[in-house]
C-alpha cells in the first residue's frame, strides 16, 4: 500500500461538528460517493439527454472506493473518528452508500428528490454542500477524483468553494498530522505538495490506495448501520436551485458515435510491419 498515514494527534477540537457531537472525539470525515452505470455495461443517454440510470447496471463509482479507503484508513490509524458516506441520486443510488457501509463506514446519508434529476456538476455540488451543512459539517470531506460517467471532475473544487473550505484535489498521498492535512499530487509535468488546516476537502486518485473488499463481517454489520434519507426540503434547498431547472448548461443533443468503417485487420505473416508503415504513409499520418 502506498497510503501514508501519520499519527493523528489532536489536542483540541477544531471543527464545530465534533465539538457539538461530543460522543466522537476523533476526526469526522464525510465521503461523497456516486452511483454510476457500470463502465463495462452499454451506457447510453436517453430521450432527455440524461444518463440512463435505471438499467440495473448501476454500481458505486470505482474511484469513490479510493475515497472510502482513504477515509477509513485515516480513522483506523487515528484509532478514533467516524466516517459518513453521502450520496445524491435516485432510489437505486442507495446501493452506493450501502457498499460504503459494507466497507466500514459508520453511517450513510442518501439525498433523493425528483427535483434533483438533470443537475449539472454545480447543482450536484450545491446539494452535497447543503447536505454536509445539514449533517453538522465535517472535519474532512473526501471525494474520488471523478465520476466514471460524466468525468467532469469539477464537483470537488466547486464543493470546497461552496463549503468555504480549502481544496486539496488529486491526492496520490495523504497525511493527516494533527489538524493539518497534506497531500502529494502528480500532475502533467509537475509534482506538488499542498497542505491546509482542517476543515478541508481532499479528492484522492486511484493511485492513492488499494480499496478493501467488504468481507462477510462487514456485510453483516452494514445491515445494522443507519441509512438516513433526506429530501431537498430537509436541506433548505428549493427545487429551482438544482436539477434541470437550476442547471447552468443544457444538453441539446446526444447521439452514439458511428462505428468506424474501412477497418483493416492483418494477421502477421512476416510483413505486417511493412504493411503498417504503408498504411500510415497512404493515410498521410507520417
Amino acid at each position, binding site marked *: 500500500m502506498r497510503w501514508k498515514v501519520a499519527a493523528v494527534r489532536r489536542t483540541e477540537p477544531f471543527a464545530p461538528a465534533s465539538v457539538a457531537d461530543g460522543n466522537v472525539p476523533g476526526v469526522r470525515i464525510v465521503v461523497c460517493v456516486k452511483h454510476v452505470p457500470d463502465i463495462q455495461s452499454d451506457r447510453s443517454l436517453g430521450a432527455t439527454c440524461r444518463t440512463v440510470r435505471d438499467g440495473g447496471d448501476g454500481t458505486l463509482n470505482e474511484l469513490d472506493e479510493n475515497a472510502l479507503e482513504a477515509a477509513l484508513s485515516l480513522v483506523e490509524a487515528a484509532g478514533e473518528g467516524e466516517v459518513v458516506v453521502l450520496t445524491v441520486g435516485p432510489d437505486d443510488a442507495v446501493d452506493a452508500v450501502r457498499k460504503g457501509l459494507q466497507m466500514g463506514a459508520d453511517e450513510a446519508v442518501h439525498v433523493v428528490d425528483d427535483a434533483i434529476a438533470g443537475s449539472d456538476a454545480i447543482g450536484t455540488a450545491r446539494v452535497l454542500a447543503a447536505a454536509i451543512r445539514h449533517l453538522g459539517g465535517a472535519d474532512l470531506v473526501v471525494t474520488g477524483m471523478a465520476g466514471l460517467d460524466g468525468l467532469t471532475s469539477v464537483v470537488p473544487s466547486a464543493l470546497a468553494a461552496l463549503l468555504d473550505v480549502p481544496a486539496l484535489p488529486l491526492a496520490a498521498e495523504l497525511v493527516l498530522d494533527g489538524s493539518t492535512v497534506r497531500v502529494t499530487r502528480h500532475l502533467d*509535468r509537475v509534482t506538488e505538495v499542498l497542505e491546509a488546516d482542517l476543515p478541508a476537502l481532499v479528492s484522492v486518485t486511484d493511485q492513492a490506495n488499494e480499496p478493501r473488499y467488504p468481507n462477510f463481517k462487514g456485510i453483516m454489520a452494514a445491515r445494522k448501520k443507519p441509512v438516513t434519507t433526506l429530501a431537498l426540503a430537509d436541506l433548505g434547498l428549493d427545487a429551482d436551485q438544482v436539477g434541470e431547472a437550476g442547471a447552468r448548461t443544457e444538453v441539446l443533443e446526444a447521439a452514439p458515435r458511428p462505428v468506424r468503417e474501412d477497418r483493416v485487420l492483418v494477421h502477421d505473416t512476416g510483413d505486417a510491419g511493412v504493411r503498417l508503415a504503408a498504411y500510415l504513409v497512404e493515410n498521410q499520418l507520417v
Partner: protein
Amino acid sequence: MSDTLVLLDHATDGSLRAPVRELVTIARDLPGAVRGVWVADGAEPSPATIAELGVLGVTHVHRLVADGDLHVAAALAAGLATLLAETGAHLVLAVSTFENKEAAGHLAVASGAAVVTDVDSVVWSDERLVAGKTVFAGTWTTSTAVRTPLAVITVKPNSVPVTDAPEPVTPQVGDHAVALDAGVGRVRLVERTEQPASDRPDLTSAHVVVVGGRGTEGDFSSVEELADVLGGAVGATRVATDEGWIGHEAQIGQTGVTISPRLYIGAGVSGAVHHRGGMQASGTIVAVNSDPDAPIFEIADFGVVGDLRTVLPQAAAELRRLKG
C-alpha cells in the same frame, strides 16, 4: 456578445503550450475580441511569444499578478473572476488539464459561470454558446448549450487545426493585480517540482502517441523507437505504470491522461474500457497485439495480430527507409 479570455498556459521558458493555439483559433470564430491571460508565475512572455499571439489574433495580453501563488486553483479562479469583471468578457477558455478544471469549479461558484469540460468544439449558435464533447469513453457525442451570461469551458488538445488570424494584430500587454482574500491563502503550496523537459512532445498535445501495454512485458524499446521515428510521444497503460515499467505520468486512461492525437498506436495494449476512455477520441487508431480477441481490435482502424517485438521495429525501419 462580449470578449473571450483565453488562459495562456505556458512552459517555464515562457513559450506557449501547444493547445493554447487551438483555444485562440476557436475563440476567434466567436463574437468579440480574443484576450489572453498570462499568469505571472516567474515565466514571462518573450517578444516572440507576444508576436505569435498577435499573428493568432490576440488583441490583449493581461498579466495576472498576485501576492499569493496563482498555481493554487482557488487563487487562479479569483484572478479570472477579477478579469471577467474588469474586461466585461463573458467566457473563459482553458486547456483541459486537471489544474484548469479545478480552477473552473472555483470560478463557477465565485462568478455564477456555467462549466463545460473536455469539449472539442465551441460555437456561437442562436445567440448562445454551444460546446461539443464525447462521453462514455468516446462512444457518444453530445452538444451542450450555456444558459448563463458567464461560462468557463475547457477544451481537449488536438480538437481543431490551428490557423492564423486573417490580419495580424499587435497585442496590448497590461498588468492586473489580483487581491486574494484570506480564504484563498488557506491552501499552502509546500513544494512544486517541475519534471525536466523531455525530447519527445507532450503526451496531451502530441499529434502521434505510441502506447505500450502489458504485451511489452516491460521492454519499451520498440515503442520508443517507433515513437521517435514518427516524432510522437510515448504513453502507457495502467498495467505498465503499475508495474513500474514507466512513470505514472505516462498513463493513458480515464484516471490518467486523456489524449486525442491524430494517430494512436497501441502496442501490446488489450484495450480495457478504462484505457479506452482516455484515447477513444483519437483520429486513427492502430493496434498491434498477439491476442486476436483483444478488445482494442473492436475500435482499431488498422489492427495487426502479431508480435510487437517484430512488427514495431519492422515498421520503424520501413518508415525510415521511405523517408530516405
